[in-house]
């Protein structure tokens, strides 16, 4: 049942409206940040209000205006997009409070611009999650690029400048490729509307055209999803303030890349067609290579944020690999891992931010014994690390379980080895941090200057850690019933394969 309802646009509009108020109240930090907080809560409320209905099969749709004669500027809420929308709006709330604490404790400049750009980013993420066709998707995709650019540039120094240039060149190229591919799709099919299971068929164009379009579009998505060798921008972008790394470069921006890949595979080409044209295998190889190579690189990084960045690159490719395997369970696993990785990685990044603010340390080798000074932070860090490694009863396990089953279902059990290897490597690059923090003695005459952190920073960390445990123990926890949503999304995409439960 399709209902015409403006709520999707409301969710996109709320942060944009907040931007205006944020800019207007730039002289009053408390009021300014209150607007940001109100917007995040309001947005989550709006998204949540559609929850039960979406699970029951209702589709909300609204067209604001026509972009071209046949393609509307349309948002539509169905399970696959709803997962991402809930996830991003849910995590915006803790990160917002965390930002307030981080930016103030760290005395960052230009905080007004920071909060404004952040709100625009969230607005475009909502748009991406709910876009109903390729062109609307592209509009928000580009908006996100532009809105996150000033955040990377935030420090306004030489390093930030280089990083932001790199960031912009990668993401703009990806946007242009996406557009070129989208126009191609439009020209052979005459439509751009996402349809679960894909709207392209083999009789629309010769095989090589379909293959070429797939490669172009997947390339575009892979840049933002940081699939190697297109990952260069992500470690560079770590120069941004840590909340940005936490939400945008672990959740929002990179996840839009992954989400784009999922959309392209599930809603443009469809698993059935991809099974025939065969290019998805190439993507799977690239993703598998990325998982392993990035984990090895992560082992050798001393800068904590960079190590987390490479871990992100690997984890993102889990999702890409899941999508590329095309089986119902692997796609379900991909959607679940989208959620799982977001919750875990945001915790890790927020912890890294706490360490930076409290001890001004960036390098892992200097972090001996900090667990004694900041036990809560490091405890959360440890839990999230175990989650990344895929420990049962934490959120990362369920998604990996499904991914592994999906590989079996697709008849490609070798990929399970990749995941196992990667889990071991994750233990290898994250656990030493915890070990050093807790079990190594503090250096004798401690040269470190301890700053102070506020509860604004600790509470969000505890909250996301709690989420990681909660989703791990009972994945069907409502309100955001991610498990059922992912199942539903995978069912819709792979309807031709028969349902899964």
């Amino acid at each position: 049942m399709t209902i015409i309802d403006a709520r999707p646009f409301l969710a996109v509009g709320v942060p944009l409206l907040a931007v205006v108020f944020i800019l207007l109240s730039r002289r009053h930090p408390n009021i300014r940040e209150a607007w940001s907080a109100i917007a995040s809560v309001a947005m989550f409320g709006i998204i949540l209000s559609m929850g039960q209905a979406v699970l029951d099969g209702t589709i909300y749709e609204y067209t604001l205006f026509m972009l071209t004669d046949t393609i509307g500027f349309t948002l539509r809420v169905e399970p696959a997009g709803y997962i991402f929308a809930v996830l991003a709006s849910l995590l915006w709330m803790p990160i917002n409070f965390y930002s307030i604490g981080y930016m103030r404790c760290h005395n960052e400049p230009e905080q007004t611009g920071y909060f404004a750009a952040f709100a625009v980013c969230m607005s475009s993420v909502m748009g991406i999650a709910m876009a109903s066709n390729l062109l609307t998707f592209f509009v928000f995709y580009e908006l996100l690029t532009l809105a996150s650019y000033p955040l990377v540039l935030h420090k306004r120094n030489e390093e930030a400048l280089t990083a932001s240039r790199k960031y912009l060149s990668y993401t703009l190229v990806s946007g242009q490729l996406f557009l070129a591919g989208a126009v191609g799709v439009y020209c052979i099919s005459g439509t751009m509307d996402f349809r679960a299971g894909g709207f392209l068929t083999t009789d629309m164009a010769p095989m090589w055209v379909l293959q070429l379009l797939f490669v172009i579009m997947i390339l575009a998505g892979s840049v933002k999803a940081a699939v190697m060798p297109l990952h260069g921008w992500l470690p560079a972008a770590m120069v941004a303030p840590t909340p940005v790394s936490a939400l945008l470069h672990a959740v929002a921006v990179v996840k839009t890349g992954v989400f784009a890949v999922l959309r392209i595979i599930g809603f443009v080409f469809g698993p059935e067609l991809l099974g025939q044209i065969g290019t998805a295998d190439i993507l799977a190889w690239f993703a598998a290579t990325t998982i392993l190579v990035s984990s090895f690189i992560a082992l050798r990084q001393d800068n904590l944020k960079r190590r987390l960045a490479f871990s992100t690159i690997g984890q993102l490719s889990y999702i890409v690999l899941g999508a590329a395997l095309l089986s119902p369970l692997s796609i379900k696993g991909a959607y679940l891992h989208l959620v799982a990785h977001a919750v875990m990685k945001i915790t890790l990044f927020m912890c890294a931010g706490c360490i930076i603010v409290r001890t001004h340390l960036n390098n892992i080798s200097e972090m001996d014994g900090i667990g004694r000074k900041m036990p809560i932070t490091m405890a959360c860090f440890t839990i999230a690390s175990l989650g990344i490694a895929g420990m049962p009863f934490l959120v990362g396990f369920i998604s990996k379980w499904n991914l592994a089953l999906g590989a079996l279902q697709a008849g490609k059990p070798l990929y399970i080895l990749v995941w196992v290897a990667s889990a071991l490597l994750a233990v290898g690059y994250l656990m030493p941090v915890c070990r050093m923090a807790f079990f190594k003695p503090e250096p004798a005459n401690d040269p470190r200057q301890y700053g102070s952190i506020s509860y604004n920073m600790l509470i969000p960390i505890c909250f996301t850690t709690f989420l990681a445990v909660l989703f791990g123990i009972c994945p069907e926890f409502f309100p955001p019933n991610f498990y059922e949503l992912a199942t539903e999304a995978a069912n819709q995409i792979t309807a031709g394969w028969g349902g899964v439960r």
Partner: protein
Amino acid sequence: MMLFEQSPLFIVLLPITAALLCPLLSKLKKKLGSYVVMAALFGAMLSAFTTLSRTLNDGGSKVHYWMGNWPAPIGIEFVVDPLNSLVLCMITVLAFLISIYSIPFLKDEEWLVYGGYYSLYALLTVGLCGMVATGDLFNMYVFLEVMSIAGYGLIALGGKKSMLAAFRYLLIGTIGASFYLLGTAFIYSLTGSLNMADIAVRITPFYSTPLFAMACACFLVAFGIKMALFPLHGWQPDSYTFAHPGAIGFIAGCMSKVPAYAMIRVFFYVFGVNNPVVEHLLNVLGVLGIAGILIGSVMALAQYDFRRMLAYSSVAQLGYIAIGLAMGNMYGFIGAVLHLINHAFMKACLFLVVGGLTYRYGEINLYRLGGLNNKMPISTIAIILAVLSMVGIPPTAGFFSKWYLLLGAYEGAQYIYIVVLVVSSLLNALYFFRIIEQMFVEKEATLTEIHKPETKFGLPVTMIIPIATTGLSILILGIYSTDIVSRIIKLGLPEVFVR
């Protein structure tokens, strides 16, 4: 009701009357002349919109206006279809806005310069509007010359170095005009007519004659020079750099677009594209367009003067129009026309801001823009909008023209254009984001103020309003592009494309 019938004429008649009266009135009272010109341009703008609504009300029919009521093939006529009137609206809107914008630049000038400037300005509008509205090849030549001469004058008013630039343009421009005249003569000798509609009927038997090919080549060179199509763009960077800063927005916005539109008229509506000569010629246009896009973009990257960079970017953007036409299908054509209009507004907006910088600081070094966002906030927003549009980011106008160009390229299976469009967008991003970086990242540049900021936005109100309006129009043109395409442009398509 009579007045309503005459609307196509008023678009040209009002400015020309004002132009002739202006020096005289300025002698009486310095500012009187300029007010009359502004009023006339406003009237012209209203007439243009009236004409547009007239053509649309009739379901896209052509409005013929016979001068002195002499019937068409003998007398001179204005022919206005939806497409023409759209371009007329664009010209008159920009003309009116920028006439207000130039006031602060002239306030210290003598009456002669004051009156002369507005007189030339009104004449430029006359020339541009006339070229679009006329239905007669020779009449178009007259308006082309009116436009050019007014243009030379306005460029020469810019100061010391502008003389040379204007003279150079005069020489090259005259060659262009001569080619136009030559082409017209060839066509006249073939068909014995100068009326466009008449030629379109009579030319068909001569498609394979060498003289027709010669004429086409002459027209291509003529329009190529006037629209600064690569490699005939040599006059443009200097002219744009040194022209009078008050008028440059209008010159850069319209003076290269209108010849491009005239070329569309001659090739698509008079000669028709379904003959081998014009088909070959469009291929040439496509190659030149590609070369222009690439070379213009690269040259723009190498500049440190903001105006020069914009000039080279214009060469590149004209290439978009050229390749759109070269695709020879409906989408390409729509893309070209849409880009013509969008680009006029984008470039005008950018040059207005640049003019504002000239006005306040007298210096426009790309690498000395630091802190502009605090000094001139509205201008900064306008620049950002224009830049996004140049790069082609939705929902700004520039994206939509690129969208139709991409569709056209796919439809014609001319994949090279897709590559060029993508590469060009990225090059645009490269040289335009440099500006944004400069504004926000660099330390505040120490610039000497020539004029004090009169408002808290850093510029006089008469300059802020046009800057804000053109900036906003980029968004509006983007959001309403569907309406513009389906309700206006599609009604005025050449017959080959109508399905």
